């Protein structure tokens, strides 16, 4: 563990209308910023995946009745990690949904076609690729907070 406080290098906020057609933009922006900020190609893809899954859920479920409402994405690149917040004013995620997504959807039987999943993978994927996933809903605003650590963090000692 490094005891020095993280240094904020840059922060960017993106706002899109909650339409599935806008997802590609969000993904492309997230990937390019992550890779320019020092994440590997593979980590950048994982970050892109998590953000796309999260924004898709907001559009598909949270904004179902509010098709033109906005989704806000905030990316803050610290020295040792990236903090992402995806927030909206739609219907909150059911309280147990995040906990339920425990990766068991991937415990299907390879030889039994009937057990292969075709949906219900999004939240489990987010949890698989992110180092921390938290959800909160306050005053009508829902926020999913994702943390991804930098690969190259080494436990340096302060001099």
């Amino acid at each position, binding site marked *: 563990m490094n005891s020095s406080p993280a240094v904020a290098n840059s922060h960017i906020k993106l706002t899109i209308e909650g339409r599935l057609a806008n*997802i590609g933009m969000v993904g492309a922006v997230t990937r390019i910023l992550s890779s320019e900020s020092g994440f590997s190609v593979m980590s950048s*893809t994982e970050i892109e995946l998590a953000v796309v*899954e999260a924004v898709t859920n907001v559009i*598909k479920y949270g904004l179902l009745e509010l098709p033109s409402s906005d989704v806000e994405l905030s990316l803050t690149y610290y020295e040792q990690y990236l903090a992402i917040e995806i927030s909206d004013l739609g219907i909150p995620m059911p309280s147990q949904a995040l906990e339920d997504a425990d990766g068991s959807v991937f415990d299907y039987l390879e030889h039994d076609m009937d057990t*292969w999943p075709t949906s219900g*993978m999004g939240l489990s*994927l987010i949890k698989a*690729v992110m180092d921390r996933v938290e959800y909160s809903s306050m005053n009508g605003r829902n926020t999913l907070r994702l943390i991804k650590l930098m690969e190259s963090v080494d436990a340096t000692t302060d001099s």
Partner: protein
Amino acid sequence: MTLENITIKLNVGSKKMENMTIKHQGAVAIIEPQRKRIDASFAIKFREDVVALVEQGQKKLVLNMTNVEFIDSSGLGAVVSIMKVIGGNQNLTLCYVKDSVLAVFKLTRMDKIFIILPNEEEAVARLQP
């Protein structure tokens, strides 16, 4: 009719909206999605188009993923659906799967189910008797 026209208008725009190309080689159809991204904005249409082909009698498929740089869980769900409809991995192979796409197959263990081959020739050959 009006809706049809609007669709056409969008399609002639700057974005290439053509969804996929289909080639035939013997009993095998080679499908090449013409999108960089298979996400929730495309997954349903993609699955429907390919499933329609299977339901028309196409029994062996290669998915040439050369253009696809990103897939999410809805895209993967579409590919799994197609696999189910066509009856398993003796009838469907994939080729030119980029690392960023393969990563999602691995995260979901789907790399154990799908037969992923380096190029189209091998992907077609694997399906021929």
